[in-house]
Structure formats: C-alpha cells, structure tokens
C-alpha cells in the first residue's frame, strides 16, 4: 500500500476529548456539590464533606445562580500526531511480534494463540 497507514490525528483527538469531557463533567459535578454545600451548609458541615457531597445532588434543590465552570484541557497538533504515532507503533508491534511467533510455529496466519503469547510483554512495554 503506497499511502502510509497511521491513525488519523483528528480521530485520536476526538477520543481524547471524549475522555477529557467525561472527567471534566465529573469534576464539574463535584465542584457544584461543593459550591452548594458552601452556600447552604454553614461552616459546621465542612467537617463531614465527603459524605455530605454524596447526598446533596439527590436531596437538595439548587439555587439557580450557582454555576460551575470546568476547564477542559487542549492538545496541540503535533502532540496529537505524536500520540497517533504511539498508537500506530502499538499496533505495529503487536502484529510484528505475533508474526514472529507465528513464523516460528510455521504458520502463515496470525491466530489467537500467537497473540496470547506476546500479549503480556507487549502490555508491559507500553
């Protein structure tokens, strides 16, 4: 194949954004819960914060003026290219190592057993 295969940096970016969004949303929820607590509960409630936070979202109504802003991290273009290269190397390594094992066993097709053999070391290496 003449065209060089690699992961599309945009695709990688979207996967990253998805994970970051998920984390940002979580952070936002926690932050909101804390804000509420600061407003509603007086200083005495701060001592029992961990348990209190858990209950707030279900039992209390929120004052509408409480806002949370959550910053989501960005990624620069070269970092994304480098990440897609890292992922490409991961896949290439998996195939090449499995191919070595398959070759040693005299097989022309890479099967599950070959992947199983190389998997532990592959995961340790990345």
């Amino acid at each position, binding site marked *: 194949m003449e065209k060089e295969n690699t992961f599309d940096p945009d695709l990688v970016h979207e996967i990253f954004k998805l994970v970051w969004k998920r984390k940002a949303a979580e952070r936002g929820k926690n932050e909101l819960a804390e804000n509420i607590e600061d407003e509603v509960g007086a200083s005495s409630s701060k001592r029992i914060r961990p348990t209190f936070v858990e209950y707030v979202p279900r039992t209390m109504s929120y004052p509408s003026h409480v806002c949370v802003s959550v910053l*989501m991290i960005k990624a620069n273009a070269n*970092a994304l290219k480098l990440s897609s290269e890292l992922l490409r190397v991961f896949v290439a390594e998996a195939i090449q190592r499995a191919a070595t094992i398959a070759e040693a066993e005299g097989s022309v097709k*890479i099967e599950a057993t070959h992947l199983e053999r190389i998997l532990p070391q592959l995961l340790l290496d990345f």
Partner: protein
Amino acid sequence: MATSLAAMTARRATTFTHFPFSSLTSQAVSIQLDRPVSRASFAIGKCDMLNNCPTMEDLDGGMASDVEREEEEAVTDLLRDRFRLCTISIAEGEAKQCGMEVSQPIITCISDLAFKFAEQLSKDLELFAQHAGRKSVNMEDVILSAHRNDHLAASLRSFCNDLKTKEPNLERKRKKNPRREGRVAPDLLRTPDT
C-alpha cells in the same frame, strides 16, 4: 465469524467513504444538541461555553443521566468503529510486510486493546499537562508517557524532532517511519531475556 465480521467492516468502510469523517461527527454532535442546551453542554461537556448553569434535572440522577450515558456510549461506539478501521489498515499493511495473514478477530482484539490504551494515554497526558501547569498537552507529555520504555521514548523523540524540523512537508517523514520501527522491533523483543 471471521467472514461476517469482514463483511460488516467492509460495509462500514463503504458507508464511511461516502462521508468524510468530520461530517459524521458533526452529525453526531448536532443530534445531541437537539436537547436543551444547558443539559447538552453539561453532559457532552461543550466546555467552551462554560457558564451554563446546570438545572436541577441535570443533577438529580435518574432518567437524565441514563439518557446521557446512552448517548455517550453511542459516541464511544462510533469512535471505536472508526478506530477499528484505522487499525485494520495499519495491521494489514504491517502483516503484508511480514508476509503474513492476520485473522479478523485478532485485529478486532488488538484494536480494542489500542483503544483502551488511547483512553489511558489521554488520562496520562491530561495529568502530565496539569502537573506542568499548562492548559494544553504538548509533545513532551507524549514522550513522557512512554518513558518506561527507552526504545519507545527514543523512537518518539526522533519522530518529534522530525515533526519540528520538517514542518512544511508532513507527508515525507511519515514515509520514513516503517523502516525505523522495523529496527526498533527486534530490540524490544530482546528485552524479556535481560
């Protein structure tokens, strides 16, 4: 199993070629934005418009969060399929170089592994960037994420230098890569013995 999977991916491949990837994603986003704005922005984290106040329904658990979770899963599945397409092309190219064939379930398996790896990588990168007090991830973070493996880090660093020096013609340096990776592979294979 293998044939049906191949047929499935082939069908997907044809649908994908009709739309460029970006149009697919914009479709997905527009579907989600049909919902009330405050909730959509909170759930999908359109965090550029940050100052939306989540209303009570957003946070009271129950149905709303179920819907959100389902939609998030749909987006994840879409991304996973696109990721699999890329993996298939890489894996088959690589296998062709070795003169081997790869069975489809194996590629699927490797693709899922790589997807998990990507998710983990994104968490690492975010933490590294935050630790450095930056608001964006840069190349150093990516190299740092590979620091456990010297060969890998070195390979990434040289790729990084290539990116820096040859900014204008991006396509040429990608072409060089497979040969370099071919050199790295035997080194990595030897590590278990030591």
